[in-house]
């Protein structure tokens, strides 16, 4: 059942972030916020969790003197996402 699913990915916002980044080289915080519709605070917390798990690489820099957070999915994140999708398929079948 859903207990077998990776708890780090199995949440609507974290799954959204992973699904967006799986097809992209990288995306910044504003882009992820626009696509997910999440609040800054919530998005920041979830990105942190995925980053701490090694699923995302999070880089902080500055653009035009404004802080910029750029996220990309790691090899570990890709594997975790693929396993999650396989588990979901098994669960539905």
């Amino acid at each position, binding site marked *: 059942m859903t207990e077998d699913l990776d708890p780090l990915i199995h949440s609507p916002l974290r*799954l959204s972030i992973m699904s967006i980044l799986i097809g992209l080289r990288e995306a910044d915080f504003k882009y992820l916020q626009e696509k997910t519709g999440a609040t800054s605070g919530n998005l920041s917390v979830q990105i942190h969790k995925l980053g701490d798990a090694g699923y995302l690489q999070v880089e902080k820099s500055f653009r035009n003197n404004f802080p910029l957070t750029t996220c990309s999915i790691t090899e570990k994140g890709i594997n975790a996402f693929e396993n999650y999708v396989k588990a979901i398929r098994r669960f539905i079948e």
Partner: protein
Amino acid sequence: MKPEFNAQESLKVIDRMIAEARYRPSRAEGTITMLWGYLIMLGALGHWALDVLARWEYAPLAWLILIPGIIGTIATRMKFRTEKRVRTYVHDLTAQVWLAFSVSFVILYLFMQPTAIHFLPVVLLLYGICMWLQGALIRFKPYKYGAICCWAGGAVAFLLTVQDQLLVLALSVILGYILPGHVLAAQTRTEND
């Protein structure tokens, strides 16, 4: 208590987010294609006119018109890079295709005289490859039709004199660059409006 996030909902989220993040060509890309199209057309026609009509020995200087194109492209790319909020694999691959073209062009330019009879036909064939790949990468058929025009122009150009090849180049660029560029710009405008 939070409602359970089930497997069906997970799949829906994955589908929706992947669709949201799919690559969409920007208006800047159509603009750059058109800019290069017009400049190459003017360069080719200028070279032809100065050579055939004015009989000026420095007719190839007409290609200096490409310098604003190089500056314009760098400026547009820099602006796009500072504004860019997302980088897709399509962006990276498209850049690699045009980098490969540039390297090939420089090698051709250095080792084959630009006035050599096969220079422009080979350049047109290389353009065709780039347009075809770009059309495939961004899933935009007019670029593929443009590639076919460039290949056809390249094939015809092999049979012509260097002067006539310039006219074929101008025509190929109108059909292969400028028209697809306008279609892309119109399409991105409609999608953005």
